[in-house]
Each structure stands twice: as C-alpha cells, then as structure tokens.
C-alpha cells in the first residue's frame, strides 16, 4: 500500500520561504484537504510532491521511497495530478487526452484507448470520447481530466482546485466524483477553496483538513471538528458562522452590516 509522508519540508524561492518546516502524513486510502489563503504555498506543495519543485531540505516519501529517487514511470504509478484549470489550445479528442495518461504502461495504442474509454465510461462520459477537448464546457473538461487521472491508475491523486472556474452544479458534480473515487480506495490530497463542498466527499470525520498559512501548517483537524469554523476564521482573518443544511454544516463568511454594498 502506498502513502505519502512529508517531513520538515522547506522550499525557498528568491530568498523567501514558500514552505516552512511542513510535515504531514497521508495514509493509504486517506483524504487530506489543503486549505489556506492564496499564496500560502498549496500549489507549491503539490508541485514539490510531484518533483517539479526541488525542496531546500526535508523529505517527500512515496510508498516509503524518496520521490526524487523514483524513475519517471515509477513516480507516475504512485502520483497522479489534476492541475489547476488551464487553457488547452489544440482541439484533441477527449479520448486521446485520456489515452495519453496511459504513457507509463508501455502498451499498444489500442489497449491505451480501450482503457481510456473505460475511464470515460466510469465517469459516465463515454459520449465525450470523440469530442474535441476545446469544445467542452469547464465542467465537462474537468471530468475528462479526472478520467485521465483514473486512466493513469496512480495510487495517490493530487488535485489542485478541482472546482475552480466551474458553476455550482458542476462543482458539486466534480466533488461527488472525487468522493466516490476516494471511497473506492484512491488516496487523495486536494487543494481547495470550496470548503463547503468538502462535505460532498464523504463522512465528515474522515475528511482531514490541513490549514496552510505562509507555508506553515496552521492546523490539522477533521471536517467534523466543532472548532473548525474558528480555525478557518483565524486562517483567513475573517469570521465564519456555521449554520446547517439538513445534517450538513455550512460555513458562511460573516460581514458587518456596514460592509454591505449600498
């Protein structure tokens, strides 16, 4: 089984510390959400785990081995990545985008495409196969990229703001998908601002949250923690009230009457 272990990680860029002495463990099958203000180092953390950023010191272990010592294909067997939404210029068919994620398997194109189709089917979007990726909506495209992640069959998924640039219905859909992948055994590290969507992933007490502030771990807790709204408020420097929708807790940022637009 494969987990992720980050210990005493320091990353510096141009003399400024992006990550400071950061440590956390992510066991096999666990889910950890990274929250924090923009610039806190969330994306840098994912990129460091992937080996795209070289840390100054500290270690990133995947399945007990330092990530820098893995070959490209070995690393791809452990770590998959859903990058932050970016524009794609070429009208490549969705199936081909997903099949490209099978690179690590050294298999025939036919096999790669069959596996890619299976991944699209698993997400209920096999009918996108021939559609150019550039013609899909944001939510459709995000689901295709999730299918690529599934096709890669990595044990740990690193997800960078999977809901950004999506409308609320698409966001919910994407988080439900991630939740179902997690519950079927995927280990997940997800960077997010969509705090209220974390509840869509699965049982609140199993959703772990790491608050990142200026590259430091501000808190580690679970979504079910009664103190979570206060921790989050301190992290972002605003106040959250928690209200409930059915059995779910919903966090709402508070603003004073005077701040309301007139």
């Amino acid at each position, binding site marked *: 089984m494969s987990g992720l272990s980050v210990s005493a990680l320091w990353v510096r860029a141009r003399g400024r510390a992006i990550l400071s002495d950061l440590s956390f463990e992510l066991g096999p099958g666990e889910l950890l959400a990274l929250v924090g203000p923009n610039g806190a180092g969330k994306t840098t953390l994912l990129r460091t785990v*992937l080996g795209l950023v070289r840390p100054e010191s500290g270690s990133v272990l995947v399945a007990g081995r330092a990530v820098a010592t893995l070959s490209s294909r070995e690393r791809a067997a452990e770590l998959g990545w859903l990058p932050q939404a*970016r524009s794609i210029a070429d*009208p490549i068919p969705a199936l081909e985008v997903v099949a490209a994620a099978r*690179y690590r398997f050294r298999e025939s194109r036919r096999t790669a495409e069959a596996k890619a189709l299976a991944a699209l089917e698993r997400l209920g979007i096999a009918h996108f196969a021939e559609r150019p990726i550039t013609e899909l909506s944001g939510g459709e495209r995000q689901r295709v990229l999730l299918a690529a992640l599934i096709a890669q069959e990595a044990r740990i998924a690193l997800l960078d703001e999977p809901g950004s640039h999506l409308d609320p219905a698409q966001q919910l859909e994407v988080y439900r998908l991630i939740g179902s992948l997690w519950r079927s055994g995927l280990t997940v590290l997800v960077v997010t601002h969509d705090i209220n969507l974390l509840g869509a992933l699965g049982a609140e007490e199993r959703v772990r949250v790491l608050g990142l502030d200026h590259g430091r771990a501000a808190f580690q807790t679970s979504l079910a923690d009664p103190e979570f709204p206060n921790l989050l408020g301190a992290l972002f420097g605003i106040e959250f009230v928690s209200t409930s929708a059915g059995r779910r807790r919903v966090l709402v940022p508070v603003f004073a009457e005077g701040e309301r637009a007139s």
Partner: protein
Amino acid sequence: MSRRVLGVLGVSLAIVVGSLFAGPALEGEHAPFVLWQLRVPRLLVGMLVGAMLSLAGASFQIVFNNPLATPSTVGTLAGATLGALAALAFGIEPEVAGLPITTLAAFAGALSASLLVAAVASSGRARMGDVLLAGIAVSLAASAIATGVQYVADSRALFAASRWSLGQLPQVGYRGVGVLSPAVVLTSAVLLGQTRALGSLVLGEDAAHAQGVHVPRLRALVLGAASLGVATCVAWCGPIAFVGLIVPHLVRLAVGPGVRLLLPMSMVVGAAFLAFCDALARSIVPGRELPVGVLTAALGAPALILLMARQRA
C-alpha cells in the same frame, strides 16, 4: 484509416509522380538520362528534405508548445549560414573527404548552434520559454558573427553565399540521396518513436511529467535528433523557407491535431509539397529556374491563410 487521411495520401502520391513530368517533355535520346540522373534524384532529395523539415517543424511546435516554432527555431539556420559563409570566405580546400567544404562547414555550424540550444533545453530547470530565447540568442549571435565575416569577405564569396542562402535542389546523380537518407531515416525513427511522449505534452510539460514522461530527456532527444536531420538538409540544399512552419499546420487542418497522425502525415505532405514547389520552380518560367524557396513561401503562405479562413468559417 479515415477517408481524409487516404485523400491526403492519394493527393500527395499524385503530386510526387506528376512532378516528374513537369518541365520540357521527356523525349529524344537524352530522355533516360534526364529522367534517371536528373529528375528522379532531384525529386528524391526534395522529398527527403521536405519530409525532414516538416517532421522537425511539427515536433518543435509540439515540444515548444508554440505554433510559430520552425526547424530553425533552435538556431539551425543561422548556424548553417555562418558555417557556409565562413567556408566560402576562408575555405582553402574546396572539398574534404569528397564533400564540398561549404556543406561540411554548414553542417558543423548548424549542428553546433542547435546542440548548444538542445543542451540548455535538457537541463531540467529550463522552462521551454527559456529554450526559445536561447535559440533566438544563438541565432542572433551567429548572425552577428556572420555579418563580421561578410565585412572581411571578398565579393566573390559574398555572391556565392547569397546564392547558397536561396536554397537549391538541383543535382546530378544519387549522391545527395546517399548523404541525406541515413540522417533522415535516423532522425525520423527517433522522432516517430517519441509519438506517445509528445502526445502527453498536450496538457503541458508539467502534466506530462506527472504522467511519467521524463521531460528533459524528451526535449534533448527531440531537439538533438531533429537538429541532426535538419542540419544535414540545410548543409546539402541551403535554407528552404516556410516548409517546416507551414506543412504541419496544413496537416493539422486536414487530418486534425492528434500527434499520432500529425508526425507521419507531416512527412508525407512535406515530401509532396516540396516536390510540387520544385516542379513549379523549374517549369514556371521556360528556360529558367527559380529558387525553390521562393515558391515554397509564395505558395505556402496563401495556402495556410486560405485553409485557416475556411476552418474559421
């Protein structure tokens, strides 16, 4: 295979065969010599060069993630020009090991310029934008040195250099085919072998890295292999403009942007395109030949604009 692919293959084949019959009619006692010692080898060289430049252009456009990348983006052309010019200006021996000194010097210049840039690219830290800039810097430096060489060269060397820079396919016999074939075969084997890795670059270099592609190694392989092939072509024929830029775009518009078809079809269409341009170059003005580079630019640019306009419509 899709109907579009078959159509493109058919048209390309027709152009290649048809180009043998462009120009004065093949008749009389010299006809076999004209056909087998002049036209066929010239056609083969044109096809090899067209295929090589187009494949290199397509690969570079993918690796650099830039639709304006050309086979000379990594300084190949500027290096070759400097080498040829230096040989014409200072060359003592006209031939070394049976090959013209101009050709050898152009090859050395092209290869050293582009391998310098490939070395920058293979450093894991360089972003692809840095590599493009390195290519521009090497090109500018080579051009500046070439200007210095021009300043001290005599007028005969200058004239020969400007002739060289027009690009040329004419030859007698099969020596060019013999020189170009190994380089083209080797380069295309390497580049076509990287199709899957290049396909992973669709979502960007970082995503390809996450999917298990060793990106610095891929860059070094592609730039190194393509530089070898392009340097050989440029050394033998001089620079031939526009082919490597335009053909991959024509192919994308005709059969789609997928890497799997783009690379081999660029070779096919590039071979046919250059054969077509050369057939026109030697038959459009009776009794005179135009430099083929003039035709590639004159035909390629409007064709591209036309196809893009149709695509948008």
